[in-house]
């Protein structure tokens, strides 16, 4: 590859096969040159469902693909294994495949060999694989699933040493699992803490993630009939993917005003519970959401604060990283595309948080038939609307704070909103209504904005001081 920078065309999987087919190429050409997984269902800002997974790979994230048998999750993982990472490390590539089964021992089976001279098992180098294809990982019982924590954490503990997996600061994985309602007899439940290690979970059975009808028609025509997983051409995109991952990572260091505000809105706003003490709302406790059913503010059972709680820090970091990756991929696909940061952040929240144990489990089961992506989409939309209603206040104050100004004194006059109540003279004050948008006496708290303003001012002062020095 002469050019070190990734092009969107490099990343196309089955879409490239579809294009070749429509251009009149033969099945043999497609077999020899293209990957297999085809899903061009448009989802967000010009990205299709395949792109959503690809963004996770570029971000160096752990991805969990769930869905019924035959939905394409293993094919997608296999395509990434071959078409991006040149196949298995044992064959000169940069990927590794581990298949879940009850007796799985990753160290013994995959990561170590016996050193006959030392009479002990030593790492065989496979831990440096850049991409980990973890097939059917919930076919391991929970005790064996614990081995996947190491992969999820990006570090192995071997002979008392903590050893990073991957290479050059990059590693990603795709795990696949059948999350049925009891029909998969050989599967086991997945620990919630382990699910949290998968920054992106895509349920390929969810209607918004299913291939288009055209895709489904063409899938049967692109290749000869074969029910198993198909092997795509082996190619090596590793250097370009690592470079993309670094750029994505770099952007998360300074995500910008709107992106930061959305993260804080979710982090602190969702903590808020005004039901227990009307005078002083407090963070949601361990009793969430059980207290919500008796809450006087939740009479219809659909108050937004009863539907969702705050994500843990790891989830918020995944969300920001994934938003950065989506931004990167949208621009890679169409450099002219304008990206609304608020829409982007809430979309990243929706896609990274559905399985992170933040949704009210009773509502999820009763109203959504355990379809987490469906409930998550609704919740994310409601939260976005609430943010939108208040965004002018939040962002105006944070923007001023970044300039070192403490500006939270809003007012309303004749239907117009102004900032600077404290600067009004007495006669003018008599004509306006002071506003206090930053309070926690609402389902999604906004009191955090005052703290964020103080923090931003301190940072602005520090920056000014450093520039002066």
């Amino acid at each position, binding site marked *: 590859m002469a050019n070190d920078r990734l092009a969107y065309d490099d990343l196309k999987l089955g879409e490239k096969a579809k294009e070749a087919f429509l251009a009149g190429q033969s099945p043999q050409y497609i077999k020899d040159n293209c990957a297999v997984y085809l899903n061009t269902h448009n989802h967000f800002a010009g990205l299709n469902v395949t792109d959503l997974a690809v963004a996770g790979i570029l971000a160096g994230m752990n991805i969990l693909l769930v869905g019924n048998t035959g939905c394409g999750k293993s094919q997608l993982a296999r395509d990434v294994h071959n078409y991006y990472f040149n196949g298995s490390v044992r064959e000169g590539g940069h990927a590794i495949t581990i298949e879940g089964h009850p007796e799985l021992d990753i160290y013994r089976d995959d990561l170590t060999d016996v050193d006959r001279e030392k009479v002990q098992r030593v790492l065989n180098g496979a831990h440096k694989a850049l991409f980990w294809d973890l097939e059917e990982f919930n076919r391991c019982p929970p005790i064996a699933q614990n081995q996947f924590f190491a992969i999820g954490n990006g570090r192995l503990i071997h002979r008392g040493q903590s050893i990073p997996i991957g290479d050059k600061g990059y590693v990603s994985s795709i795990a696949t699992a059948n999350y049925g309602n009891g029909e998969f007899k050989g599967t086991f439940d997945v620990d919630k803490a382990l699910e949290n290690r998968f920054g992106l979970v895509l349920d390929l059975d969810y209607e918004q993630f299913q291939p288009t009808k055209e895709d489904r028609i063409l899938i049967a025509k692109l290749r000869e009939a074969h029910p198993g997983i198909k092997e795509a051409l082996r190619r090596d995109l590793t250097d370009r993917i690592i470079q993309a991952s670094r750029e994505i990572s770099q952007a998360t260091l300074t995500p910008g005003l709107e992106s930061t505000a959305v993260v804080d809105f979710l982090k602190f706003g969702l903590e808020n519970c005004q039901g227990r003490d009307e005078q002083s709302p407090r963070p949601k406790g361990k009793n969430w959401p059980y207290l919500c059913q008796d809450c006087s503010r939740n009479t219809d059972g659909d108050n937004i604060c009863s539907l969702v709680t705050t994500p843990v820090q790891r989830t918020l970091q995944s969300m920001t990283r994934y938003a950065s990756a989506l931004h990167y991929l949208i621009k890679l696909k169409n450099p002219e595309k304008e*990206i609304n940061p608020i829409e982007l952040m809430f979309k990243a929240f929706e896609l990274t948080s559905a399985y992170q144990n933040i949704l009210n489990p009773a509502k999820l089961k009763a109203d959504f038939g355990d379809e987490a992506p469906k409930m998550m989409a609704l919740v994310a939309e409601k939260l976005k609307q609430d943010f939108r209603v208040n965004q002018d206040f939040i962002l105006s104050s944070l923007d001023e704070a970044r300039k070192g100004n403490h500006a939270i004194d809003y007012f309303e006059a004749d239907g117009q909103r102004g900032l600077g109540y404290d600067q009004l003279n007495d006669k003018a004050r008599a004509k306006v209504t002071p506003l206090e948008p930053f309070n926690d006496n609402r389902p999604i708290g906004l009191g955090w904005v005052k703290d964020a303003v103080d923090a931003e001012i301190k940072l602005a002062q520090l920056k000014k001081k450093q520039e002066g020095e």
Partner: protein
Amino acid sequence: MAIQIIGDRRDWNKINSNLVDRLNKEAETEKEEKPKKKKAKSLETPQTENFTPLIVETNIDPSEYVRIGINGLKGNPVLISKFEIPSANNKNYNETHEFVLSKGLYIPTPAIFMTYFKNVMDAHDRKAKLFDGNGQEIKAKELKDIYQHLTKDHIDVYSGGNVGAWTWLNARFVKGTGFKSLDLETIIGIDKKGNFQTEEEPLLPCHNQDSYVDLQFNNQGLATNQSGDQNYKPGENIYFWTPRKDCVAGFGADAVRAGLSCWDPDYSDASLGVFACAEGAVTKKSGGKK
């Protein structure tokens, strides 16, 4: 404004202290004299560097608006937003009016919008300059964005999937006494009960066929001449749908063409929003109103 790293567009209205100055001044003035009733002023073409700033009655960021050199519905110089305003999508015609009026703004009439459109075309062709609400000339890069947004599939303001301008305009074609037995109804406000205040005037003669038209418009902003070229020529012609009873006006641009349209007022879409207008009075250098 802080640089946005993840994402591109600023999609919110900065609440600033402009209103403070105005309210304080008004309060001071009231002490000395009774307030003078605002009087409609005509405005000279503002396309010069000797631009006179406006006092805008509504709390907007003037840098996000463009001065187009004509007066608006209230008889004062009108500013129009450079792009569709935030959060105005997914609303039908009436809901959009309610939303925009609640912000102290109003939906541009075809006359205002097509003047803006022509000003942008002229500025793009370097026949004139375009100035924002602060009197600052719009820079070339932004002008290009505006031009392309109005003429092709450029910038998806609401991330709704349809790229290019897509806006309601303030005109409903109702049964009346004008051209085609139609009147043009304009919404000028909303009363405390939530009822629209409207004005009607007979529809002026305009092009009576769906086709490409030259950029020649009557005083109501409706096209008058069929284009000699019935292919789309960005900046030279647009597609025009002739007025129909009970339809409302709108403007859209996409990969195929730009057009002044006639729509079902009940329609709504994630990508369909609205440009907005604010009005202000010209100030003297001393700061008082002219």
